[in-house]
């Protein structure tokens, strides 16, 4: 063994013997404070006091919320997705699948697929519908890029392709193989705080979003950027969440609605009122290009 290799070995051993990988410094617990907090958590009697005593503020009757999202800028052309499987179906006749993350209507500048939903309401008007909501896939693309359903409402997950797909709803128990021309029913058992991703693992480019709400106070904007949520309880302040695939919570500059960076605003409706938020301008930077 010569000296150079010896040196190399020592340097190597030195490097290996380092204890810390390049992990960032993680804040540690304050043990004294933890001890005190534990005492309050363990000794207190079951927390009956905190539950259910809050007075529920609400009124009577129902109102409607409506508005329109438009894009303040010119979006780039949608990118073609990398489609490298089952081309006889997924690339039929040279068809190119496009990234649908940002869909802006060229004439009206409306932004499609913005989700608006109530975070919590004291009253709910309509029962959960029994009619299944159809969620279909064709030519290796989910036909609804963003869909909303109520918890417990049947969703008819269909496959209109001549090949098999699996539909995997993140955070749920649903990841089922849907054979060619097959279908199956899914009923969500829990709410989603933000829309959850729906994918097909066989065709990794396939992507959609689903939002499940107990009260059904949720809307997805149409191609022209408009949305309407009817039958909202009047007389109570309702906090709404606005979401877009590109931004998550969509922050807008609307001080009159106290629109926050997390994409939330609060509105109180009167009985029979149709509250139109008007044109909600999404700055170009908010949704990428």
């Amino acid at each position, binding site marked *: *063994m*010569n*000296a*150079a290799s*010896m*040196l190399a070995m*020592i340097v190597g*051993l*030195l490097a290996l*013997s380092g*204890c810390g*990988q*390049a*992990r*960032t410094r*993680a*804040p*540690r*617990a*304050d*043990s004294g404070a*933890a*001890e005190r*907090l*534990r005492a*309050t*958590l*363990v000794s*207190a009697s079951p*927390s009956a006091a*905190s*539950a259910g005593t809050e007075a529920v503020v609400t009124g009577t009757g129902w109102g409607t919320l409506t508005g329109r999202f438009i894009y303040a800028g010119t979006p780039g052309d949608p990118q073609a997705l990398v489609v490298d499987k089952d081309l006889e179906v997924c690339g039929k006749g040279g068809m190119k699948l496009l990234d649908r993350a940002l869909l802006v209507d060229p004439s009206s500048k409306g932004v499609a697929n913005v989700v608006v939903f109530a975070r919590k309401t004291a009253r709910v008007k309509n029962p959960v519908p029994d009619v299944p909501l159809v969620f279909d896939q064709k030519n290796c693309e989910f036909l609804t890029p963003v869909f909303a359903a109520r918890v417990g409402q049947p969703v008819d997950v269909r496959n209109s392709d001549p090949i*098999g*797909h*699996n539909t*995997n709803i993140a955070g*749920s*128990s*649903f*990841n*089922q*193989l*849907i*054979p060619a021309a*097959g279908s*199956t*029913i*899914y*009923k969500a058992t829990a709410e989603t*705080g933000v829309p959850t991703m729906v994918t097909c*693992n*066989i*065709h*990794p480019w396939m992507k959609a979003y689903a939002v499940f709400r107990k009260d059904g106070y949720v809307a997805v904007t149409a191609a022209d950027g408009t949305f309407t949520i009817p039958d909202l309880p009047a007389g109570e302040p309702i906090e709404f969440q606005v979401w877009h695939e590109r931004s998550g919570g969509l*922050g807008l500059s609307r001080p009159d609605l106290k629109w*926050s*960076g*997390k994409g939330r605003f609060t509105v109180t409706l009167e009985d029979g009122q149709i509250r139109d938020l008007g044109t909600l301008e999404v700055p170009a*930077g908010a949704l*990428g290009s």
Partner: protein
Amino acid sequence: MSAAVHTSTAVKRMRTSIFRVPSRRESSVTMTNHPTFSPSVRTPWPLVAIGATLLASTGCGRTEPASFRLNMVAATKTTAPLSGLKEPWAGWSEDRQRQVATILEAMFGTPDRPEVVPETGLDQGKLRLAAGPVHSDIVGRKNGLYREHCVHCHGITGDGMGPTAAFLNPYPRDYRPGKFKFKSTWRDAKPTHADLVKVLNDGIAGSSMPSFALLSPPQVDALAEYVKYLSIRGETELALFSYIEQELEADATLSEDRGFLIDEILTPVVEKWAAVEEEDAQIPIADLPAGVDFALGPTAPGNRESIELGRKLFHGTGGCVKCHGVTALGDGQANDYDDWNKAIVETGKEIAGSLTQTKEASTGQMSAEDRATHRAKLEWLSAMERVLEGDALTPRPIPPRNLRLGIYRGGRRPLDIYRRLYTGINGAPMPGVGPSGPGGKGTVPSEDIWHMVNYVLSLPYDFDGELGVDRPMVAKDRF
């Protein structure tokens, strides 16, 4: 000889031995004719001594009591700078993260002293047996089982990032999201206690997870309880960070009320673990179809027929070929990730995109307020990059299983395969062909899943001419 003299001699020798390149003649002579050391390649012992001293001095230093590490990926991601933030981002986010660490310690204790609030439903006695450093307790029972058997792969926090983890494929399980693959329950449900005990006893074939069947049943039981403890702790941590992200405004702090911490944060986590110990939590097992008897082997006429039916389902309705390939070698769709790795991949992409976008958005005409916001965002994004690099293992894709090998990670009994097919594999891309919940409708009738089981179990011994080979198709034929 004094140290000073020793050192200067060493330096001289180093000069003469290291920095002289041996001539070609010298080295060839040394290598071929004389196996003795020539002066130019003599082992530089003083250098070795210096090296050894240096090695010793780089040691990890003092031993601190073991502590749980915050889930820094979640902690950083959920403390993105908010509008209206008045203080510098780093200190602000660190305060929030430290508060979560403190709350977790109050609810769960430390790795040396796990003290859980009663609402966790965990057995303190079992946890004591599994936790802490390895030692004998007052009655001579061995304690510290987790640190003796598990910690080097799964890590002290149960984050699947112990010292050995980076060298293993697949990576050890990260318990913190509370997601488990091999179990008897519905896809997104927790495993039962018995499911965890089974994995500990059997190990996971085809992975680095060994069997711990040589431990006594109470010891295995204690370890299963400890795995649950680390999961519930990790899920509570995620719930707190998700609350911070979803609910807290810039100037608000996390409530430390019992009503909030126990009822709103902990209870929903614990309820899911309690639910699987109820009677109907496990997936129903269909009766075997007529003629199917696994004990008789694949050549029995009833099984032969069943294997043929299974083969049709495998290539048709079941959709198995899409990923496992027509050859069943696992060579179909192969560039996907499991949930644990996917979370890192997706976050990485998001952060990289956002970083480029934010840098581009920077202009000279920003107002002072905008500039501060912009700076905080950049600071957060680069912190995210560092955390993804240092606090997560490099993501690896999950290849579909090669079914010709006869290795079944979740167990090789027909019942185990049935369960994998029925619900799919939680956390992995593998979809199920059974219903997604009680009362649902599956892609393949439950009884017919047994035919698929029969076919899958026959694949390693498949001599027939289906693939045009007269011997078992093995992976090396392909790669």
